[in-house]
């Protein structure tokens, strides 16, 4: 828990665009310890997915780089498994076969056929998908698809688990279920995780540290908040916990006071903005300060 496991140093990225290079990230630095659960939070379009994709190896940093256990990351690989926002399961394969594809890649020659089968089933059981493991993605619900996506990533036994808004497309109840499942799994496996989220509650509930990003372009790490709540955490008990509410308020104040949403992005993702606006009203300390902005973004939602 003490040594650095994953390290981002001075990461810049420029995307070539028709109107010249667009610098999305500027000097992103982050050190993550083994077994740590990190959330990335920030306004839409600030560059969270870009950070995650650089760690995944899908994008190359223009300057700086990523070290995992002292080795430079410059291509994608199964030791950095990704859970994508829209599940990204192969629609022509069943849940079992989707996980199998990943397990075959990682454990070919290392596990026997029977061991692989047991391992696939074990991972599907972790996410409570045993009952529907022979169904194809179009036969299961959105939440179930996301569970299979998580099972696929877990089954690779990655050094780092990367999740890009894993529950963003789900309704609140399903999201809560999956968060609980994830905490259970995390208790057992103690993976190193980087998770992108738009949900302040989710970030506080799940994370060891919350990394808050400034607005783009040239986004970077703004503040890092250590969440020192005992585990296992229970969402109902935490609801009245002053410490928990203090953390929530800290994140919200970063997002709404220190990093006001830039004008142009406001209407692009109305659903997410609405969710954040709701958070603000739920938190009395913040509500007074940003009431004006809240109505403003609510208007934007209507306009959109």
């Amino acid at each position: 828990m003490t040594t650095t496991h994953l390290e981002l140093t001075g990461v810049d990225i420029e995307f070539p665009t028709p109107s010249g290079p667009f610098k999305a990230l500027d000097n992103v630095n982050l050190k993550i310890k083994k077994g740590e659960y990190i959330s990335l939070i920030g306004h839409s379009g600030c560059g969270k997915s870009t950070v995650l994709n650089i760690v995944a190896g899908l994008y190359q940093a223009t300057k700086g780089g990523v070290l995992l256990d002292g080795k430079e990351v410059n291509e994608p690989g199964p030791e950095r498994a990704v859970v994508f926002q829209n599940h990204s399961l192969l629609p022509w394969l069943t849940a079992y076969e989707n996980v199998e594809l990943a397990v075959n890649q990682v454990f070919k020659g290392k596990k026997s056929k029977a061991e692989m089968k047991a391992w696939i089933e074990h991972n599907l059981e972790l996410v409570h998908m045993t009952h529907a493991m022979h169904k194809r993605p179009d036969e299961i619900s959105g939440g179930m698809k996301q569970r299979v996506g998580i099972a696929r990533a877990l089954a690779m036994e990655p050094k780092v688990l990367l999740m890009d808004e894993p529950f963003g497309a789900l309704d609140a109840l399903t999201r809560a279920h999956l968060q609980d499942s994830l905490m259970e799994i995390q208790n057992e496996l103690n993976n190193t995780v980087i998770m992108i989220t738009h949900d302040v509650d989710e970030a506080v509930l799940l994370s060891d540290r919350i990394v808050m990003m400034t607005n783009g372009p040239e986004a970077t790490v703004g503040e890092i908040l250590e969440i020192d709540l005992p585990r296992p955490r229970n969402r109902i008990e935490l609801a009245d916990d002053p410490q928990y509410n203090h953390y929530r308020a800290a994140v919200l104040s970063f997002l709404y006071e220190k990093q006001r949403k830039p004008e142009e992005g406001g209407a692009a993702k109305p659903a997410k903005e609405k969710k954040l606006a709701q958070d603000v009203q739920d938190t009395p300390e913040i509500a007074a300060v940003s009431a004006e902005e809240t109505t403003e973004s609510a208007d934007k939602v209507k306009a959109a």
Partner: protein
Amino acid sequence: MSHSSTNLFSPVLAIFQSENPGAALLNFVKQLVMPVIGILVFLLIWDIGAKNIHTSLGTFPGPVQVYEQTIGLIDEHQAERQKEQAFYERQEKRNAKKLAKNPDAKVKIRPYTGKPTFFDQIGTSLVTVLAGFVLASLIAIPAGIMIGLNQPLYSALNPLIQLFKPVSPLAWLPLVTMVVSALYVSKDPMFAKSFITSLVTVSLCCLWPTLLNTAVGVSAISKDLQNVSQVLRLSFMTHVIKIVLPSSIPMMFTGLRLSLGIAWMVLIAAEMLAQNPGLGKFVWDEFQNGSSNSLGRIMVAVLVIGLIGFMLDRIMLLIQKKVSWDKTAVLR
């Protein structure tokens, strides 16, 4: 199959079962009665029109004459088969006698060389079109995948594809004939030269839709699935088999069905022009023959060509439904 057959009868049952017989009846009319009316009206117009067209070979054949010619062609076919059987029986007897006299005698078995009947020609055309189509697909699908995966290759080949795609089979035919004559020389050829010529012409013409559609399907694979493939570090072959092929199957089949349609049209034209055995030759021979039955027999051929083309497309559709993973997609 079962699905379409229930479709055919379900409206009839529905009229009796439904709580709303009126709507069910309307549905029945739409699904079954309308096509039948369409066909009847067509037959009527055809009959009246035919009577008023006088050609040098007599009046244009109407539905009745065509029916008579169909029966005639079937009879001819059966007579020819009987002749063939008799021929082989005679030959066998002769050989048996020869062997009885002298056990060391060499016996020859000569093949029967009667005139191919209408149905023989159908068989020849079907074999040729399928062979040409399979050959074209074996080239077009892998090539389409390579082009789709490789943007520079696509840019390099696209002008050539666009250039050759619209070329008519009739333009290819003389070249193909000469090249096949020059290159396909063997003492004991497995296939007739005419078969190879037809096959190559068909392949050349029906290659393009499959090639282009496969390439488009492959290049349109979702970015997410490509990312999954990269994160899993799938090998090239696994990537193609597990991700590229399944996701491009719908586009591929669109191409394959277009290709098969073109193949069938091209083949008939090629057979007519090159006098290669098949339905096209049958039509041409009848035209040259110029008997009073000829127009009727050609008309039978026209209808059969249409029917076979339709059936080929239906078969492709069935295969597409079998291999398609997206069972919710509406295929027609």
